């Protein structure tokens, strides 16, 4: 497949934080061996990731420790073809549509009451698109290299439902595919462009450790714990650096044990 690199879009960056937005066409038709469409399978995969996140459980994306925010959304033809003037879709002008038009579904993957199995000839087939938007620390190529190396299988499971996806196995082809479908992000804001994810986690942990230290050495009644200097030195020693495991290999930030 020939890609025209000249049209590739540059990601935007603010400070150390970069964004990428990819708009990829979802494959038409049914997954072989199944009664689901590719779109249904894609939504299942995304739901599964979402479910872990909602249950507070780590998932494969935790392995990419540079991700600040990620979102994926499926845009359906019945959404983007609204006001297009095509029959069967809502009109913008109030009262322009008739009742039958608003209830009629567009010709999509499943034809609810089709009795034969012959596709209607020359009928355009509107497809759904997957929007993927991620905000991460550092350089975009480093980010995708991380993906290709650390979550290849799971990443493939999701994007295999999109057209032309070559897999993460061959990085160059993967890179080309990403860039082909990358779209320009008109607005990108970051509230903390100079704070990386691990840095935020470390500051959060530091505050917790600090509170614990205060609770130990200062009482609101004025009672003081001696020797404060030794305790403070111990606090500094424990609180400034982490030798390992922050995060651990699966992306989980385990706070350091606080010495009682």
């Amino acid at each position: 497949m020939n890609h025209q690199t000249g049209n590739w879009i540059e990601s935007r960056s603010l400070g150390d934080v970069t964004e990428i937005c990819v708009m990829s066409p979802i494959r038409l038709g049914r997954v072989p061996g199944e009664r689901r469409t590719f779109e249904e399978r894609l939504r299942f995969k995304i739901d599964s990731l979402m479910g872990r996140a909602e249950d507070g459980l780590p998932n494969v994306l935790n392995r990419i420790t540079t991700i600040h925010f990620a979102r994926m959304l499926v845009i359906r033809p019945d959404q983007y073809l609204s006001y297009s003037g095509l029959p069967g879709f809502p009109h913008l002008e109030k009262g322009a549509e008739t009742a039958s038009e608003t209830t009629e579904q567009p010709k999509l993957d499943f034809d609810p009451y089709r009795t034969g199995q012959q596709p209607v000839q020359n009928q355009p087939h509107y497809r759904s698109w997957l929007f993927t938007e991620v905000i991460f620390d550092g350089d975009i190529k480093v980010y995708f290299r991380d993906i290709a190396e650390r979550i290849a299988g799971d990443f493939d499971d999701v994007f295999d439902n999109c057209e032309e996806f070559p897999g993460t196995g061959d990085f160059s082809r993967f890179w080309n595919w990403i860039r082909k479908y990358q779209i320009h992000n008109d607005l990108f804001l970051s509230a903390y462009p100079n704070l990386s994810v691990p840095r935020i986690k470390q500051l959060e942990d530091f505050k917790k450790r600090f509170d614990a230290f205060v609770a130990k050495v200062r009482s609101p009644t004025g009672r003081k714990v001696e020797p404060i200097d030794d305790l403070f030195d111990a606090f500094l020693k424990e609180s400034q650096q982490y030798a390992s495991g922050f995060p651990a290999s699966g992306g989980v930030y385990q706070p350091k044990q606080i010495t009682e």
Partner: protein
Amino acid sequence: MSESPAAPATVQDESLSTVQANIARVAKQGDTRRPRDWGLHLFFRVMKESEIATTEAIIETFTKGTNAKNAPDDPVLDLYNGSPVPECLLSELDDTEAAGQPATTDNPDKPADAFFRWLSLVSGVGGSHTGSEGADGSAAPLSTLLQALQASASQSDESDIDSFGEQVEMLLNQPDGLDILVQQILALIVRHLDAPERLAHIVDVLTGLGAGLQRRPDLALSLYGRLSDILLHLFSNPEAALAMVSRLGHTPAEIGRKVVAGGLPVVCLYELLRHAAQRPNGATSGENEGESDTANTAALREERQQAALQADSDQPVAEGSSSATAVDTLPINLAFTHSGLKALQLDPMTLESFPDVFKQGMAARAERLGDTGPSAPEYWEGELGRPSIHGYFSGGFRAGSDGHPVAERYWRRLRADIRSYNSRTGQRGRFLRKMLGVLFRLFGMEVLHIELGQTPYRSDGSGRELRLEHFGFRDGISQPFVDMKLGTPPPGGGKVGRDGTWEPIATGEIFLGHPDEDGNRHIQPYCHDLRFNGTYLVFRKLEQDVVGFRDFLKRQRPESKEAQDRLAAQFMGRWQNGTPLVVSPETPLTLTDDRDPRLNDFLYRRQDPEGRKCPLGSHARRSNPRDIGGHDSVKRHRILRRSMSYGGPLLDDESKGDGEPKGLLFVAVNSRLDLQFEVIQGLWINKGEFLGQAGLGRCPVIGANDSSTSDTFLEANAVAPVTQIPRFVTNRGGDYFFVPSARAVRKLAAGFKFPPDTGEAQDRIDSIGGRKTPTLFDESRIRAIAHRILSGPERSVTVGLPEAPTRSDYPSPRTYSEDARTGDGMVFVGRHADVHRVLCDNPGPNSTDFLLSVAHYRVASRRTSRGIDLLIGTETGPDTGATRQRLQDILDTAWTRLDKQAGTYKRLKGITETTLDAAIYRTAPSGRIDLVRDLATETVYRISAEIFGVPGPDRLTEIAVALPFSKKHLFELEPDWLATLNRDPPENPALETLHLWSVIFLADLVGNLFLQDELKELARTAGSEFMTHLDDLLASARRRQPEPAQTLLDMFVQLEPEMLRKYGCADYASDDYYADVTALLLELSGTIMSVVPTAWGRVITTILDNRIGLPTLVPLLKMRKLPKEPLTGIERLVYEIDRVNPAFRIFQRYCETDMVVADGLTIPRNSWVGAMAIAANFDASAFPDPKRFSLAPFLPGPKRDPRNYLMFGAQGGQRDCWGRDRLALDLMTSFVERASRLHGLRRPAGPGGSTRDIARVIIGQPARFAASG
């Protein structure tokens, strides 16, 4: 709110005139000028008209046909408290019908007429709504009876009460005892109306009469019926009600004092009589509903009517001068939850147009409100937070006067009554439920929960009484004062003006339909008549840990009480008497009166910007930050508070508690719950960063603290914080309510449905947000198909599948070729006869032909079982007919032999009994149970282990560990992920693992309608673990050669020689026999472990969601002895529930040759058949009147032929379910029986109450119950 401005004679601002009185301003108690100091909150459910009809039909059946000697009265009387049987269960087909199709003429969810009667009564609408006596023409005899009774009341005799009990016993044995008894009781009640203490005694005697009345349910029912008639008569005749009330005393205060002494039933009765007695003569008619004049003094009245009334009462009235003054005129308030407005069947679009936060309710917002840990909705009391609470109304009246207060012991008893009522525990609690059930049922309500608010007062030493909350602080000082043109608000209320002075906030911040602080008006809900002058009300029952609060202060400041008070003042931002720290940081001031400017006229940013006087994190400063962050911010987040304490008097300083929980019934109103109340509660109280401030932690008094080192509070000028602050205030339940204007309530009473105004609604219809990815088995698609088949001429609907591509750019390990059958279209059949025919597929006794194949079961089961056939995957015919016959023979032989040797059914019974007993014993102390897990899964596990001989492995296997992470194998997990699971290892890993294998087995075998690959892979992995485990078990049994066989597995081993003699040949040796045996064990254990819990899960969730009252219903079903019936009453219940909410909704078959199912229905070869049980179950030709839930002949209802039920497939065909009658049905009836002993069974509020499933196989249903008996 003692500092509210004095009420003027009239409200000049007409715009707020229709607001419910007592919301914008607190109503004063007539001549006392004091606000109400106690009040009732009655949380109710609106009954359905059909529910009342059904109950009456059942009651009739039972009063006529029962054998009086053996029948317990309890269940029958419970019928008065809501129907145990839903008239119609929600069916999946309902929605379709609502959407434009010709709707059925009946409306099974129609709210009870009686409820509208009450609405009319309290809001003063229409004179035509009369009680039932109007309909049957018995009004005259009733009023005659009343007059006679009142006349006889003068012959008061103290001793009659004591002999009353004996009389009842005696009367019960007389042939005409009933009429005499009714007359006696009524005479007794009337005679003692003026002495409520004695009345309370009568109630107690009636409570104790349980024993006597139990033997005569007919008597009890007639008694209740007769009482109901009389009450209805009273309620619909203001004069009669007034006359009745007047007998109690001469002044409202005197009457109220006696009523409170009479206990909860008398209080409720009087409250309702008060509504009736206040009903104005010549009330507005239904034609100009919504209109009224200021003379309307109905119990629920308008602000302007109240103002007029208040003006009248300012004129001194001689006590007892006229009967009109005898009834206390304190207004009531009425508010609805979203589910309540839905139950009243308001216009669906208008309902939809309410703000999301109101539609979701408080429980769904718990996380952001800080209702976590012990405040989480799953621990809330009773049904608070559940959609079954449709609304609440507040009551309360003057009770006692300064000289003659109500004695504290009566209040204590009233509170105890209410606690028993709410918890449903003990004889008293159940009796009260029944008694009030009879009462409120007259108005179409079930009162689900009651709260009593009481304001503790304490003298401030200068002769004034201060209104306090239980931590000892003055409460309710700052209010946002809506502009009612009442003159200047007291300084400190309202909002801060530009120059630091105070102004009222815009009316629209509190009441809908008025300009808000930005000058905008609300448009939600989309109906002006409903919206205008309405508001949203927040109710929270906040329990205060008074002893814990004081102990914490003591631990922090052991040196002196003064230091403790100082710290408490720092927490609160005010001293106990209300003095603000900003005004006087060092010591409380002696304040002259409520308009003393030092009480509330202060600012933070201007007077104390750094928090040197009043700590930044203190309660008062953060809940109303006044001028912090610029006046623009705070004024948009104000709420009008109407809270009241509960739990009796204040505790003495040294008290360790008096056994009564204490706290605050937090009530506040605002026009935008999410922008006002929730910002204060969620952000200002529970987050440390807002309005430009940071590091404030949570509110030390009411924040969601949990004693961690991060729960800190910094006093003014302090260096070190107070740390490890515990939670002092716990939310015990609450919800969001909509308070319609008094005018809207009148329209509601007249049956108005509030359709949306044109304009706004269109945007919702046009929303493009909710477009879903359609699937083949989409619920809406299935519903539409079912509806087409059941209503139209078509007998089937065929759906084609999209093409599958044959190649992919992705170098997939998957093959892109598929089984030829996969892409074939699906023919859905739905009429009962067709579904039955497809499921039976029984061409004739001598035919081995089969038309429909279950090859998909074969493919799926082979996936799990290493390629061996399971029974479910076999069928008659050349391919698997012999295997099927052999497997069936082995199973039947072993099962019969085992029963003979070891008494299988007796052991089953024993296992079931002991497991269920243990489950109840274990869960009773907490009242928390997982109905699926604790009852069903535990039981079937023991059956699998002890009867089948298939226990689980003694550990969590790979898949059991990995599945929560959506993985199959350990190597796919990261070690640090496991650490985040943060839960204890399971108590019984063997059960967990076996259960999980089984759930996956079932989900793939019958639940994988989409043929999704993830599920297939999961089943392959689980199956491989399961099979290896079975190999181990069998190998061990073969070594042991158990004799005699205790389990099915033992028996299989024993039968080996016999079966090999029978089937042994070159192709069938010992290994093949054990392959068969392994397959059988896999299928038996795998299905019982998954099917029984999931099917029971369906049954019990249906029971919970439709308020099927098992404790009432099950004894009723058992009372009916119908020896000729093939099914018991409970079996009927299980079958009927499965009919309306089937565990298996669509069965698949594959059609290999053209099959003529019936005239006009031929299923073409090479197509899938989807047999829609969910449609067939609503086919009127098999189930007459299909939308009605029927337990006929046990209870009145349309006939149901048991052979038509499709639970686990059709009965009698060649694919009849092996386990249904042998195991599953018995188990489910045992579960039903056991669950029927749990009183007050319900889902917990919030997300903690939802059903848990894996791939749509139900694995858990958390529930709570009040008591087990």
